[in-house]
């Protein structure tokens, strides 16, 4: 198992994929946060709850890109055929999938921390540029970082599961993006009571961007989603034939 973990760490290193994901995430967070802070009326931005809510794009970006990284961890192996030598070395596929889940969760934590950090920095610059007081407390920041990192880690785990199920890399990535940008955001806008229970909404609660759901409930829901996706992907990866 140690060998499989080290192997998965090595697989993260040499390709530019992770770097491009980081860059794309940075661009998205910077754009959305800046637009939100500059676009929202000054009165609305004065309250800390409103500030947190306007910054949820940071948490969402961390979760989404962590999920993409998790999906890539397995679909890239299928796409490029390295899944064959990988499973020839470790034919009992469980340890391979377990190592992918563990390393992807670590990568997800990094994505989450970076997304929240960038969000906080960008928001505080944009707020001070408009002369609005930054209402976020140390506790808020702590929850953003810790909760955001945990939410991104869980999304990365779910991403591995989705990737193992879907197998097609483009399909898995488009599916995750469509989920976050279409299903979640539509639900959030039109059926908020339902939207806040979805994986993205639960992560937002965990990161403290929303008080529509207690953070603990959000955490529990997201753990269940991630466990379900990982279990389904695990089952598929262990049973399906490799082409």
């Amino acid at each position, binding site marked *: 198992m140690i*060998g*499989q973990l*080290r*192997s998965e760490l*090595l*697989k993260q*290193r*040499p*390709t*530019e*994929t992770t770097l491009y994901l980081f860059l794309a995430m940075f661009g998205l967070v910077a754009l959305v946060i800046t637009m939100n802070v500059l676009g929202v009326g000054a009165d609305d931005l004065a309250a800390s709850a409103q500030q947190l809510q306007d910054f949820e794009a940071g948490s969402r970006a961390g979760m989404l890109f962590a999920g993409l990284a998790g999906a890539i961890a397995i679909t*890239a192996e299928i796409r*490029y*055929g*390295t899944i*064959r*030598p*990988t*499973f*020839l*070395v*470790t*034919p*009992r596929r469980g340890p*391979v999938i377990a190592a992918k889940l563990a390393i992807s969760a670590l990568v997800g934590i990094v994505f989450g921390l970076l997304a929240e950090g960038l969000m906080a920095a960008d928001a505080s610059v944009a707020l001070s540029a408009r002369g609005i007081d930054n209402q976020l407390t140390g506790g808020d920041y702590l929850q953003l970082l810790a909760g955001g990192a945990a939410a991104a880690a869980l999304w990365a785990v779910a991403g591995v599961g989705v990737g193992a199920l879907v197998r097609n890399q483009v399909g898995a990535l488009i599916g995750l993006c469509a989920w976050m940008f279409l299903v979640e955001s539509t639900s959030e806008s039109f059926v908020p009571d339902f939207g806040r229970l979805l994986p993205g909404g639960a992560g937002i609660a965990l990161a403290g961007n929303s008080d529509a759901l207690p953070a603990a409930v959000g955490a529990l829901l997201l753990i269940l989603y991630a466990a379900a996706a990982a279990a389904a992907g695990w089952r598929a990866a262990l049973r399906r*034939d*490799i082409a």
Partner: protein
Amino acid sequence: MTQLVETAPLAASCPVVTPTGVVELLLAADAGVAGGGHDRLMQSEAISQRTADQTLSVVPPVAPRLSEAVVSCRALTKRYGDLAAVNEVTFSLERGTVTGYLGPNGAGKTTTLRLLLGLAEPTAGDALVFERRYGELEQPFHYVGAVLESNDFHPARSGRDHLRMLAVAAGLPLSRVEEMLELVDLRDAAKRRVRAYSLGMRQRLGLAAALLGDPQLLILDEPANEADPSGVRWLRTFLQTLAAEGRTVLISSHRLAQVAQTVDQVLIIDHGRLLARGPLDELTTNGQSLEDVYLELTAGEAS
């Protein structure tokens, strides 16, 4: 092995069948694949640095019992819906043999190999290596090395990193990676990303990966399909060296000329059914060529 040499006239032109000799041949072969005189010059320097005692068997080999069949398929069947890709195939391979697994495209060759390697589950029957299912072998890489596709690499990963990620998962020392890079003469290209590799280099990297665990059995699927003549000859000599060390080789192909010079026995499969098996010289009696036998058998099956 003596039999193999007799059935392989080209071996006479490569009298030095030692690993070092193989590498030299490899270099000569690759000059046509990877580049021109500059490559050749660099490669000659590489040869002179190579030590004489370098051998394939660096990791202590696992010694299977002499009596056990290295490969055995018993009534092996794999169905996809109504189609039987592999239909009640039964054969076994003994230690030290080089076997050609022949048949047209879609005959069931690759499916059989995937079943043997645990990448797919049989619908019925057994596919065993060293009398166990592949997934039941402890440290299978010491028993079996396989190259199924010539391009199972991440294009953005270097050749060295490809081998490292496999060695690390296998718990093999990283020094083994360097030895394999040296063996297939990819040391100078080890840092480069695989996307910059020529076909011949990819083929050698695949072999290096398969040989990381110093396996007793080597399984190659259509190994020289796209290789040029020098690459084909390099591979042939390489396989003969491995067989001379007592390893077993199973190589699937539909290129008969290439196989006839390399193997000492053949299995012929079409439409999922094993049509013939036996030593090359027994199949090709009455002055028939392997091609005659093959076409006769596969045509009969198709009608």
